[in-house]
């Protein structure tokens, strides 16, 4: 979630007389605060690109509030960025953001309205179409950028079957596996959602232009960037986050644990999204991880029927926004005792250093912090300070 809007009450922070759920006079359905947050991230693209080497950290950063983000990565430019942010809040949205939706618009996808995910989305179609596409279950397909012919063929067949069954398929844009998914959907006459990592006004690779036109015509292309933005490195993990936020089930076909594909699975797991994996050829390095996921409990997916069965087993209401991360204990399912609760409250309040914990002795504070870290509730950051995990 682009945090600039997290604390934004529906009526506050919006352009007066526009309101969160109605389009502005210029036709945009995004409030000024959300747009300022998105534009701020766009102007921080260089730093975010650098952070994208550690995708998990990047996702943590993107979840921060605007002012927290400036503090975290602004460096020497902090003051300048704060001024810029104030200016962005005041100025009229640029034309490149025309047609964008913010999370305060009722047409914004409901699945993205909880914790995590973008606060502004630029759409290639009318918001009503995206609303219609995301009204039912959405199946995301993810995998290696360098998939084999086998991976592309299986994905194409899977997407074709799902589209024929009336299920919306979502995938990235710009890699072979995603293209195979969109092709399959188009072959069945269905509509897919493509999550792009570059501005909608930018032409993609020449080879995929016909495909993109098809997706635009029947489905929807969404993006977190203004229309004229080039592809940025930080957008790849951010697009995966949007993709996982939109989907009801994630299917992995041909992926490598060490590659960027791992992020989608990690995000899906953290959000409690059911996971399916397509078995691959034994001996292929691209099959190792899907097989490991299958061993770890992912559903075996041989065709569209398996996914439909998964959707039946995992009704949508189980995936209410934020269901994967229990606000109290990060989904660990345990109740914290008073000692850990006290320390966690202090860390949440900003006492991140072990010696700043006042509710426990020095030794007990260290033990409590380590236990909280093992529970995944706090992380140790710069200068040995602990902070609440987002």
């Amino acid at each position, binding site marked *: 979630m682009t945090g600039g809007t997290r604390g934004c009450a529906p009526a506050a922070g919006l352009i007066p007389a526009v309101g969160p759920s109605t389009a502005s006079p210029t036709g945009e359905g995004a409030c000024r605060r959300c747009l300022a947050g998105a534009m701020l991230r766009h102007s921080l693209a260089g*730093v975010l690109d*650098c*952070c994208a*080497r550690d995708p998990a950290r990047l996702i943590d950063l993107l979840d921060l509030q605007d002012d927290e983000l400036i*503090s975290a*990565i602004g*460096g*020497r*430019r*902090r003051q300048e960025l704060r001024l810029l942010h104030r200016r962005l809040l005041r100025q009229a949205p640029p034309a490149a953001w025309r047609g964008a939706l913010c999370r305060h618009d009722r047409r914004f996808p409901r699945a993205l309205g909880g914790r995590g995910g973008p606060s502004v989305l630029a759409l290639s179609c009318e918001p009503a179409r995206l609303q219609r596409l995301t009204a039912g279950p959405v199946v995301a397909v993810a995998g290696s950028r360098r998939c084999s012919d086998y991976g592309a063929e299986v994905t194409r067949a899977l997407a074709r079957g799902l589209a024929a069954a009336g299920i919306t398929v979502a995938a990235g844009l710009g890699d072979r596996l995603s293209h195979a998914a969109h092709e399959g959907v188009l072959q069945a006459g269905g509509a897919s959602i493509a999550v792009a990592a570059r501005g909608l006004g930018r032409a993609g690779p020449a080879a995929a232009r016909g495909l993109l036109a098809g997706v635009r015509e029947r489905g929807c292309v969404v993006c977190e960037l203004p229309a004229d933005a080039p592809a940025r490195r930080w957008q790849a993990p951010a697009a995966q986050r949007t993709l996982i936020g939109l989907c009801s089930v994630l299917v992995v076909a041909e992926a490598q644990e060490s590659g960027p594909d791992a992020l989608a699975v990690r995000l899906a797991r953290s959000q409690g999204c059911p996971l399916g994996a397509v078995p691959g050829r034994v001996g292929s390095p691209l099959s190792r991880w899907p097989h490991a996921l299958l061993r770890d409990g992912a559903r075996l997916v041989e065709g569209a029927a398996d996914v439909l069965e998964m959707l039946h087993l995992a009704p949508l209401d189980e995936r209410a926004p934020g269901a994967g991360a229990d606000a109290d204990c990060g989904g660990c399912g345990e109740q914290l005792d008073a000692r850990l609760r006290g320390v966690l409250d202090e860390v949440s309040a900003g006492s*991140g*250093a*072990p*010696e*700043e914990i006042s509710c426990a002795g*020095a*030794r*007990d504070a*260290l*033990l*409590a*912090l*380590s*236990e909280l*870290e*093992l529970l*995944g509730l706090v992380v*140790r*950051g*710069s*200068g*040995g*300070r602990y902070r609440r995990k987002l």
Partner: protein
Amino acid sequence: MLARAHAFTNDGLHARHVTVEVDVRPGLPSFAIVGLADAAIRESRERVRAAILNSGFEFPPRRITANLAPADLPKAGPGLDLALACALLAATGQISQEGLAGHALLGELALDGTVRSAAGTLGVAQAASRAGLHTLAVAPPRAHEAALVDGLRVAPVSCLRSATRVLGGGEPDRMPLRGAQAAQAPRRDEPDLRDVRGQHHAVRALLIAAAGHHNLLLSGPPGTGKTMLALRLPSILPALSSAEAVEVTRIHSYGGSRVEGLAGARPFRAPHHSITAAGLIGGARTGAIGEAVLAHNGVLFLDELSEFARSTLQALRQPLEEGRVAIARARHSAVYPARFMLVAATNPCPCGHAGSERCTCSEMELARQRRRLSGPLLDRIDLVAHMREPGSTGADGEPLMSSASAREQVLAARERQSARLTGEPSRLNGQLASAPLRRRLGADARAEQMVRRALEAGLLSARGAHRVMRVARTIADLDGSERVRESDVGAALALRPETAL
């Protein structure tokens, strides 16, 4: 005529016996030295000639050949000057040849005949005693160092004339007075932990590091007392054992330091961050030893760790892993002991205020800093102590403990380790290999489960888990606990170096 004198040359930390043979016969005047002599020895021809003439002896206009046996051993340093001159005088009949027997001669000659000190006197004295020689003639400043070896008569000789008198059966010069360095009692102005106000967390980490011989990283903003704390580490470490003291003294004697008695305090070496890899581990020239070797049995303190060249820090991997430095060069190779405790201090980021609002570093700079410090060296550091700015943690508060009480705790913890690790190659937790660590850990079920959970959660690597167990064992030893408890592992986890920067 032929004459033989006994001398020694340094080969690594060992002194090797060299027989200096001088042959004088009629022919065109010349002075040749053979036997793998280095440049310093080849130049000694001029020093010996001038010293002999200026001491009132005669330098014969004959064909002079000096051989340094064994011929296949490379000889280095100017310490053979005195033996060369005395053998030459005996070969020309100016002193008696019988006098040379049983005497070892060590010293560099000045042009006026004065005898100057040579490095490695203690090692030479030990070797002379082992070789069955009864007297060692050295320059007076080195006489006390040589006198540390029992069963060897030390003859201080200030000039070539004094040396010939000793060889002729006369009295040597007087032993010089001991300097202030010889006093064994600790100095009153030695830094004390009482001076450190607040920073209790870091002081505790220092205590744990000292008790278990763990490598420690001090991280914090500038001016928070990282260097101040590190300088107080020697004051809480146990004194050197007698074997360690001899070893330390010999290394420092070889390094060229003036030694007047057995080393009492543990070495504390703090090289500047511009040091090169050769300066740190040695090998810049034949026989040169580095700071890591000079810190043997003591502390190597690397202030501003992130400013050290990466190649320099990489060179520390072998000594940290094996406790020795093996130097192999084209013309010489040597192995030196280098078992030291590494203490490093660094700012958490280039501006020093990482994690606080005051930090002005860009993400690129932070990433660069992390890359600089992470990797093999950080992998060998057992615990990290984070220092805080005054005010945030009561740095203006009370000192946690004095050096005396900290030292008592360290001694008690080391005794417990020593008793528990009887029969193991190392008696300190920080130096324990993984197999004996598992055998002798004595952790209770909850503690083991906590380490397992940390491994499963990806917080620790396998090596990191061993490190945490070592530190937890030391914390339990400091508390006098037989078993490693969950709280010990919790504290060790909070002090682990991973992701701490």
